[in-house]
């Protein structure tokens, strides 16, 4: 039978852990609000740039952009958004699972894969399985700057321009609600054809200053950057939500364990007292 001292020690240590996990839960809850705000703040830009691109699509522009061009695919690049820190349940693992499934599916069609990774968790995983990694951006913090992602996006777009890759996928978690995060693998390049804005009559074109090609290049690059940035801030919100849930259940579990151990402790203590009493009684009877 366990002795009381041992059980007491165990209870104390679990209580310590519980304090930590409940503190982490509260930190995650307060960060979640901020990351959600960040997520919402970025939306107007993506919506506006989408509008502008829709306007361009409905204008009589002659220049077809390579980002819309369907090539026969030989190689694809996955931009994978992961969290910087762990302790957030199955958030990263569930995403990686989808990425690998998609990559295996492409592999069967003869399409090779390479990876551009965001966040500290992804490089560790893709290193261990030996994927070809072309770019990494990590330690972006809770409030990522759009400019931290420029380099990574440029690497991928340059590879597309040079014909090294024919497709690009953006893999990240989307924030459904606090309890649910949905891992997604979306095709980034070729871009889905822009929806035409029917409210504008068709017989017109912009005045381009300077050249149409230059402007469209710049705009579409910004558009893809904004999609990647949105994915990162959304993934951040997911991370904090997942962390909050994981830490909440850890705290609850610690509570359950403590209850069980306290019951055991009382049992052991009572048994010791009973034993002592019976020894005294037995001793007195012998005298």
């Amino acid at each position: 039978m366990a002795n009381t001292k041992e059980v007491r020690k165990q209870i104390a240590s679990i209580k310590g852990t519980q304090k930590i996990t409940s503190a982490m839960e509260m930190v995650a809850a307060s960060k979640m609000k901020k990351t959600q705000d960040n997520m919402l703040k970025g939306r107007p830009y993506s919506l506006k740039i989408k509008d502008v691109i829709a306007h361009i699509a409905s204008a009589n522009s002659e220049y077809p952009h390579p980002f819309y061009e369907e090539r026969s695919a030989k190689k694809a690049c996955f931009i994978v958004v992961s969290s910087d820190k762990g302790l957030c349940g199955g958030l990263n693992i569930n995403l990686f699972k989808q990425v690998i499934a998609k990559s295996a599916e492409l592999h069967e069609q003869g399409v090779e894969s390479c990876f551009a990774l965001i966040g500290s968790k992804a490089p560790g995983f893709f290193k261990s399985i030996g994927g070809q990694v072309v770019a990494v951006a990590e330690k972006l913090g809770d409030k990522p700057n759009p400019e931290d992602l420029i380099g990574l996006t440029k690497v991928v777009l340059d590879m597309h321009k040079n014909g090294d890759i024919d497709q690009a996928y953006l893999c990240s978690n989307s924030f459904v609600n606090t309890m649910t995060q949905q891992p997604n693998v979306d095709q980034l390049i070729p871009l889905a054809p822009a929806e035409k804005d029917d409210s504008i009559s068709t017989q017109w074109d912009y005045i381009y200053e300077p050249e149409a090609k230059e402007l469209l290049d710049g705009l579409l690059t910004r558009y893809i950057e904004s999609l990647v940035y949105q994915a990162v801030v959304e993934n951040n919100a997911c991370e904090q939500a997942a962390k909050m849930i994981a830490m909440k259940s850890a705290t609850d579990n610690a509570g359950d364990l403590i209850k069980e151990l306290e019951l055991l402790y009382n049992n052991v203590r009572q048994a010791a007292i009973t034993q002592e009493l019976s020894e005294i009684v037995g001793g007195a009877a012998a005298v």
Partner: protein
Amino acid sequence: MSTIKINIVSSNEEIYSGEATMVYATGSLGELGIAPGHTPLLTGLAAGPVRVQNGTEEEAFFCSGGFLEIQPDLVTVLSDTAERADSLDEAEAIKAKESAEQDLANKDATLDYAKASAQLAEAVARLKTIQKLRKNQ
């Protein structure tokens, strides 16, 4: 007096949204004055102020660059959050590549699907066990 709708956004926030009687901006080819009913125009923005006039009121915003789209009833300013130049972008790209190389000095670049799925299966199994334990308690 007729007005034109103006939206100024950057990738991490909405800067301004409202009506204006006149908008002044620094395009990549020179100063622009935009009145309601302007012909459709698409241009790059140079670093400089964007001034929004509504009647006698005027507000000014600094843009470090970006794009400007004009429709007869709508002006959209897509502002960059940072200085952008090809050389700077290139430097960022090199940084991203370097950190990839630093992080993973890969021996072989062939993706090991069997290993990946084994690792994932293990992680998922671990999660499932934890969930089951949780339910049983």
